[in-house]
């Protein structure tokens, strides 16, 4: 009990502890899917450490580190098989766990209605993943017309500009 008291703040609810465990475990699991391939030692060390830091401060920017490391390692290996879909689900699960934790301190009871709401949103967010997976596996980029790349780049640039504008005006107000 004393050990638990040192690891988590007094009054931290059991659901909050479970969510923190998910924040740590899911990125590690996403990396473990690569077995028998063993990632670089830097990735092996950094992912659990950064995930632990993320679990401690779920609303901190450190949360991007385990996501980028895992996604980057899988991207670097260019394996587009079924495991990529599972990795997408695991990373999204870690992100949603952190989002649920970031609504308040660990002593804040996790609202079941909020959990159900975010589960529905997670299902919605996962819709593009299999579509993208099928696309990258089934469509040959060489056959695509040239305007498609131009349109994609333009749309991406427009989204970036809109995001930047919204973020800037929001922070200034």
């Amino acid at each position, binding site marked *: 009990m004393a050990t638990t008291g040192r690891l988590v703040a007094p009054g931290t609810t059991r659901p909050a502890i479970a969510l923190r465990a998910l924040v740590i475990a899911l990125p590690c699991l996403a990396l473990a899917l690569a077995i028998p391939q063993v990632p670089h030692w830097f990735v092996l060390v950094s992912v659990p450490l950064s995930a632990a830091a993320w679990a401690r401060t779920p*609303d901190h920017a450190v949360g991007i580190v385990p996501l980028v490391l895992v996604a980057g390692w899988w991207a670097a290996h260019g394996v587009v098989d079924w495991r990529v879909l599972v990795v997408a689900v695991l990373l999204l699960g870690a992100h949603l766990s952190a989002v649920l934790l970031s609504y308040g301190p660990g002593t804040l009871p996790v609202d079941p209605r909020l959990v159900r709401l975010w589960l529905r949103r997670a299902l919605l967010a996962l819709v593009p993943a299999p579509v993208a997976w099928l696309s*990258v596996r089934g469509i040959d980029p060489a056959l695509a017309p040239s305007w498609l790349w131009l349109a994609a780049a333009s749309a991406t640039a427009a989204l970036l500009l809109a995001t930047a504008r919204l973020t800037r005006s929001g922070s200034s107000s």
Partner: protein
Amino acid sequence: MTGGVVLGQEVLVVLAAPFAVLAAMGLAARPRTAPLVSAQLDHVRLHEGQATTSRLEVADLDGVEHIARVALPAPHVATRPAYGAAGSLVDEELPTIVFSPRRWGRRAVGAERVALTSAWAGWVWGPLDLPERGFNVLPQTAPYDSRAEVPQPDGLVGRHRSRRLGSGTEFEGIRPFATGDRLKRITWPVSLRTGELHVITTRAEQDAGVWLVLDGLGDMGVSGGIDGAASTLDLTVRAASALAEHHVRTGDRVGMLVVSADGTRVPLGSGARHLQRLQGTLARVRTEARGVAPDRLDLGAGAGSVVYVLSPMFFTPLVTATATLQRGGGSVVVIDTIGDAMTTRDGDRLELASLASRMQKVERDDRLQRLAELGTPVVPWRGPGTLDTVLQQLARRGRAPKVRA
């Protein structure tokens, strides 16, 4: 996702696609207005153990999906939910926090942090610090009742029976008619039966002046609030509150003297407003190390007043002042409020603290014994019925014939 497209990393596109949806939805749910948040307590006047609800008021909830609020911890203040954290979606009712002060005195409640989150958790407003509000928590209204009359009621209002005959309503007896008797006092059934005029006599309705003298010079023991152990000052204040409420409700006039560094004196009075004044004074009692006990207690009380001295009797000057008051002819009752503060605990009996505690106890017992020898009753506070026997004995003593030199 953009990186995946730009860099041509197919896996990155697949992995980032769900996050792109979340980001887009979060951005789309951007609030357009800044909310105004404040919190209100349902009550501003509480007794210890009672509770009040803090309700959030948000002027503009457009774009807000979730509200979380966390009350900052305050000594002797319990919250529900535990640890003071509450949150909910705003489509139902806004989250509330219940504050319950567990000890009398000045308490600060309501300090909290509030955070508002937009839909899809894209935007967070706050956390905003809401200020605390301090108010005096009144002592617990401990159940106390006494059927004993105060020894020497003095005055013309109140419930206690007087030894004098008068124009009250309480039946005293029947006697033959005498010159000067009111005709409406004639009892016709008895007069017809006996053939002589008889009248009913009644007792005068009198009230009692009750003084409460509180020892605010020190506080021994650890206070665990209303749910835990009581310190000597806890017992003193709660006993005084119970006595004041009992006597005011029975129509007596009650005054109070707090013996402390900044001693407070509340003159005799009666009624509900006076009871509030007494309880407010009790809630402001403080102990200070530089407090000095007076040599004599100047109450300005008449001979008919009853004086309750509520004290653990650790200070010799206060004992002397009590004895002086007793010699002055008043009905003085010492209510011992030591409680369990000097309960011996298991441990080394030769330890310095243990030795000091036992020496203090021996001195205290000696003081109380001397007071008892002077005729001052000393009773430990036990709640309801604590004073019944003592007051009845004092009343009998008051009725006994006295020889004056």
